[in-house]
């Protein structure tokens, strides 16, 4: 890729659009999550503010902006304020290589998935900093959980993605999409069902969502690593959580579900439809299942997902070697 003014402008515009997407996604997803929870729990959900409660999330974010920043005593000021910023900003980079549509891609790099996986690690650093710096034992326990959970679930996630990379022969997300067909049976999910399943479980574990929401387990650790955050500090964690959900959904759509390829008419709408169906799936399981215990969470990963992912990768490699 050449570094020209045009590419800088492209990246600049892409980052602006991504910020819009992140904030818009958080607002939309909060609404859908609360309505979805309401549907599952047989109650209406938000309905007071705006038609069908649609601007409830906007009002909530306004409220968060107007809150006083409360800093508990004895915090490490630099780390305490660095943590939410660190949680938020890497996500901007993470969306750059995602091919939303045939032309709607922020940055067509050859190592797209490497970039995503590398910068996704920042999320953990922000969690551990938040838990450590806020001088709270609940936060500390949450941070310790966040680290071991992220490390555990990144490995099968990478191995599951690698199987698809082997098939496509490319780390470039745009090429991976182009290698899949328009119809569902031409997508990677039909070649790699096991990898898809492993990715699906790891993606919930990676984004700290229930039933794997151990770092912020409400009934045990009150709010985990962001116990002591209020106002925009909390809002940034919140934004980055939803952005991370969206990111793993986009990666899943790109790798396994054909990305912007879809029946009848290819285009960015297919990426968004697939990603948001996955998001609703995450919401659905959050409100359905109880939380797993921490040792069970790690057992599930190290005893099942990781060996399965390795076997899957090995079979894929052998199959490519013999049949290509």
């Amino acid at each position, binding site marked *: 890729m050449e570094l020209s003014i045009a590419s800088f402008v492209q990246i600049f515009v892409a980052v602006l659009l991504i910020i819009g997407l992140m904030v818009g996604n958080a607002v939309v997803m909060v609404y859908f999550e609360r309505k979805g929870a309401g549907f599952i729990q*047989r*109650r209406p959900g938000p309905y007071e503010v705006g038609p069908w409660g649609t601007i409830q999330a906007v009002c909530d974010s306004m409220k968060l902006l107007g809150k006083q920043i409360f800093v508990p005593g*004895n915090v490490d000021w630099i780390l305490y304020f660095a943590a939410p910023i660190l949680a938020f900003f890497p996500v901007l980079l993470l969306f750059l290589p995602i091919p939303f549509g045939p032309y709607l891609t922020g940055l067509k790099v050859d190592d797209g998935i490497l970039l995503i996986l590398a910068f996704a690690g920042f999320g953990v650093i922000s969690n551990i900093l938040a838990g450590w710096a806020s001088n709270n*034992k609940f936060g500390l326990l949450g941070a310790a959980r966040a680290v071991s959970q992220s490390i555990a679930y990144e490995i099968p996630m990478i191995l599951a993605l690698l199987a698809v990379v082997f098939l496509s022969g490319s780390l470039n997300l745009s090429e991976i999409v182009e290698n899949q067909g328009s119809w569902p049976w031409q997508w990677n999910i039909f070649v790699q069902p096991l990898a898809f399943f492993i990715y699906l479980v790891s993606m919930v574990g990676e984004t700290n969502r229930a039933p794997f929401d151990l770092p912020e*387990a409400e*009934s*045990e650790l009150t709010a985990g690593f962001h116990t002591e955050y209020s106002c925009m500090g909390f809002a940034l964690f919140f934004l980055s959580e939803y952005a991370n959900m969206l990111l793993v959904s986009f990666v899943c759509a790109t790798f396994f579900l054909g990305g912007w390829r879809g029946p009848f008419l290819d285009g960015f709408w297919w990426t968004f439809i697939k990603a948001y169906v996955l998001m609703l799936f995450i919401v659905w399981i959050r409100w359905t299942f109880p*939380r*797993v215990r921490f040792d069970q969470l790690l057992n599930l990963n190290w005893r099942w997902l990781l060996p399965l992912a390795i076997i899957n990768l090995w079979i894929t490699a052998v199959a490519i070697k013999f049949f290509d």
Partner: protein
Amino acid sequence: MDRLNFINPFGVRYQPDMVSGDFYTKNFAKGAAENTIILNLGPQHPSTHGVLRVIVELDGEYVIRAEPVLGYLHRMHDKMGEVKTPWQFLPNMGRVDYLHPIAWNWAHVGAVEMLAGISVPERAEYLRVISCELNRISSHLVWWGAFVMDLGGVTPILYAFEEREKINDILQIVTGSRLTMSYFRFGGVCADADDRFLKLIEQFIPYLRKRLKMYKALVTDNVILRRRLENVGPMGLDICQRYGATGPILRAAGLAKDTRRDIPYGVYSKFAFPIPSGPTDDCYGRYLVRLREIETSLLIIEQAISSLPDGPIVIPKAPKPTFKLPAGESYFAVEGARGQVAVHLVSDGGKTPYRVKLRAPGFSNLSLFAEAARGTLLADAIAILGSLDLVIPEVDR
């Protein structure tokens, strides 16, 4: 205290004078082992159901010691019983345990009736059984929802409350209130059941049976829930008897002991009902016992409704508010949702009783926690705490 040490709790042994905190934390810190942190769960914590405070010593995620601290909701109910006449004390009983107030009504009214030698009309006895069992169901349902919420499943509590609302709608007809019910009177009950009351109950029984099937399929058989509960926090017969645990905890340990059967009161001896016990003494066993008890209660209500006799609901010369207890002593125990609920009255013949002792099952059951939680994971300790079905106002009284 040194700021660095506070930020680095793993590296520093807690010395009593180093720990900021109150009397309890400082005392607890005296016995702390190397490389542990002392964590204060509560009194404001999402899973202590009110204002219970538990101090735990953690080695990583493992609980080394745990100690409940009580008294944040102490309202001196025992003392109030000594300065109020039995009539004035009656509304207090609905406030001791807000989830199963009818059992406390019954314990107090029963103790007074036992002392004064009052017998209760047949219809009133049946209405007492019906209201007490309905109330037991609603108590168990709230426990069920709150317990699954402790485990991280947020949805069941809303379903449980939907059922509880229906029970409240029914009980409201006779008791006049939805939470702190004060339905019993000395020598009977205060309001008669009308047709609407009986019809609603008849509709409710098959409805709840259908829902219980759904809960079994959705929650009880859920693999995550079973993994969280099975073999967690075993409380064998030995520990139960040492601490005086009663109710579902004791029955889950395998001993089919139920006050309704052992010391029959009211008209319970006329009904045929099983006493669920076992199969395991872990959290899952206690969970199953409580769910089976809902079915038992439905069975009792069904029998009571079908054989409800006609007649007065209160004895002709019922005690008036100026009623004086004869001198003497009485102890009346009933089976509450959490175990044996009892009131011990000592009267010297004066206007107010000389001494009132409320036996709260939650208090004895909570005593098991410290021993059962030792060596478990923090998440397990929360599950054990939830499986004890604590109502803090009742524990503290």
